[in-house]
């Protein structure tokens, strides 16, 4: 048993040692990033069997739970950190020699900080700590956005302004919660939440939603997403779209299912999610810029996850979580391949990517696998989660929601198949640029997609356990607080 806090501490340590490594050898930082993420994955694998049996609580400074910050790793957190570590390792391998800024050590520093922040958001058991980790993640993301010299600064400014406003609302929520409960510990707040005035809970929930939904990519607050995701370097787009959104949704789930359980609020979440889903898909359909299209598709997918989780049954929650993790894997694949296609063709427009599959077949196949996975074609990992989502909403009697989800899938199919048709059968009209082909990350990601598609039991069993844990929060409270 290795202390699981190392997965936060190690990236933070190496992040600030990167300039030193860069001083020794210019090629060293990218190797160090790969090593760090690999060690993280190793630590999680070592601990996996133990945590799946019983949640691990790490009390920092060895003070008892309500008085100090603690980290909580249950099944949900365990699956999330496993997925995060796998994807961050794949992206680190991609960064090894596939980016023109690989020589810039600052990029690697920020990448490690963002990874540490994401782990923190997922694992923390303290709401102020949650705020700090969200800020760590977003400040690193602001920096990473500016690496594109072309339009990065404009996107970063948008991101900073919206991020700062949201963080004010998040702090306000934390302040009100503290003044109502007298503690910042999530389990303690959950235990005391029935004592808070219900109207105050509604206000606090709204403030939390405004504060975190910006991070999770729910539409009214995520107008920065398309700019930042389409302009940032591919590896950063993948991180933001796959991992930061994942962490944001996990934080929202924790707030609404562990902290303040108020089923009367779920209907609002469902409505916001459904509207954001349909609007996101409709805007994605109109995009000509391939990365913008993927960014709007991310918004729609996150809204789908939020809606289906707010249905609130165990089956629907595990379906939504499965979709969340599938989306992280698939969007990483999509953004990487889209980035390579853009570099190869020298253009971001879908109409200019015609026939690219004949020149760089593996990358085009990777993109298609990602698209078909998002659509939920059988044998791809999205299939099982889509089935679970549709089943879950039908079983809960939400027929309108089911209709909207299927309607959104139809729009999704229209624009993804349009791109696939273009890159495979379109007329070749590009003058190729030289690119470094990234075979290893793409092949690994495709393997993962098919592995989860053909053998979904691998993740469904722990997901059911996670959904069960989410719904039985008295266990969570007694786990953290002991017999208090």
């Amino acid at each position, binding site marked *: 048993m290795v202390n699981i806090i190392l997965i936060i501490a190690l990236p933070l340590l190496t992040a600030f040692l990167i300039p030193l490594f860069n001083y020794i050898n210019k090629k060293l930082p990218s190797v160090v990033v790969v090593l760090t993420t690999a060690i993280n994955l190793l630590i999680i694998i070592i601990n996996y069997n133990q945590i799946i049996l019983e949640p691990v609580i790490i009390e920092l400074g060895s003070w008892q739970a309500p008085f100090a910050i603690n980290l909580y790793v249950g099944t949900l957190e365990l699956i999330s950190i496993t997925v995060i570590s796998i994807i961050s390792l794949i992206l680190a391998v991609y960064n090894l020699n596939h980016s023109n800024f690989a020589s810039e050590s600052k990029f690697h520093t920020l990448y490690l900080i963002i990874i540490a922040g994401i782990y923190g958001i997922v694992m923390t058991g303290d709401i102020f700590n949650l705020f700090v980790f969200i800020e760590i993640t977003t*400040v690193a993301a*602001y920096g990473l956005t500016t690496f594109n010299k072309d*339009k990065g*600064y404009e996107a*970063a400014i948008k991101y*900073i*302004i919206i991020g*700062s406003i949201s963080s*004010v609302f998040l702090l306000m929520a934390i302040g009100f919660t503290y003044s109502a409960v007298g503690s910042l510990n999530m389990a303690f707040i959950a235990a005391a939440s029935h004592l808070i005035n219900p109207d105050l809970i509604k206000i606090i929930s709204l403030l939390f939603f405004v504060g975190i939904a910006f991070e999770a990519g729910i539409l009214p607050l995520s107008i920065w997403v398309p700019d930042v995701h389409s302009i940032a370097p591919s590896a950063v787009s993948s991180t933001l779209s796959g991992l930061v959104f994942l962490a944001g949704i996990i934080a929202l789930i924790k707030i609404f299912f562990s902290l303040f359980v108020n089923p009367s609020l779920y209907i609002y979440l469902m409505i916001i999610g459904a509207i954001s889903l349909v609007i996101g898909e409709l805007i994605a359909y109109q995009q000509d810029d391939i990365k913008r299209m993927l960014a709007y598709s991310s918004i729609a997918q996150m809204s789908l996850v939020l809606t289906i989780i707010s249905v609130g049954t165990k089956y629907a929650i595990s379906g939504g979580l499965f979709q969340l993790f599938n989306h992280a894997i698939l969007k990483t694949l999509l953004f990487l391949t889209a980035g390579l296609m853009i570099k190869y063709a020298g253009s971001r427009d879908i109409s200019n990517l015609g026939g690219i599959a004949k020149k760089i077949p593996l990358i085009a196949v990777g993109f298609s696998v990602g698209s078909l996975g998002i659509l939920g074609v059988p044998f791809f990992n999205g299939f099982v989660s889509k089935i679970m989502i549709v089943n879950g909403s039908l079983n809960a009697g939400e027929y309108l929601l089911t209709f909207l989800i299927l309607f959104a899938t139809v729009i999704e199919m229209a624009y993804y198949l349009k791109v696939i048709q273009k890159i495979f059968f379109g007329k070749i009209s590009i003058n190729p640029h030289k690119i470094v082909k990234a075979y290893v990350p793409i092949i690994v990601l495709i393997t993962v997609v098919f592995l989860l598609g053909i053998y979904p039991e691998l993740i469904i069993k722990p997901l059911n356990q996670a959904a069960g844990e989410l719904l039985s929060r008295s266990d969570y409270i007694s786990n953290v607080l002991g017999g208090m």
Partner: protein
Amino acid sequence: MIDFLEKWSFFGGSILLILIGLYGVITRKNLIKIFIGLSLMDTGINVLLVSLGYVKGGFAPIITSTINNNSYNFVDPIPQALVLTSIVIGVAVLALGLGVIIKIYEKYNTLDISKIRGLKW
């Protein structure tokens, strides 16, 4: 009147400060003014947090030779610790934002967001 002010000036004032900042962010066209608005919002939230832990006539929660037992009225130290963290984060974000603004000014020679392509919303 004085009672009312004493009771509500912290809460009302800080929330007013946040709203003024938000108004500035939404209506101003100049990037620097937008960031002044953001900074006002930060200040407002810091005042709000401190006022949540304020106890009238309370002492700083430090044991000294004269204040040496629990019978004294202490203000809550946790919001103050939170505010310190939040100030640091606010300053970091402000510095980063101003750095990016300098880059934008070098590129466009203007700070007016209505004239900067890619910043219209």
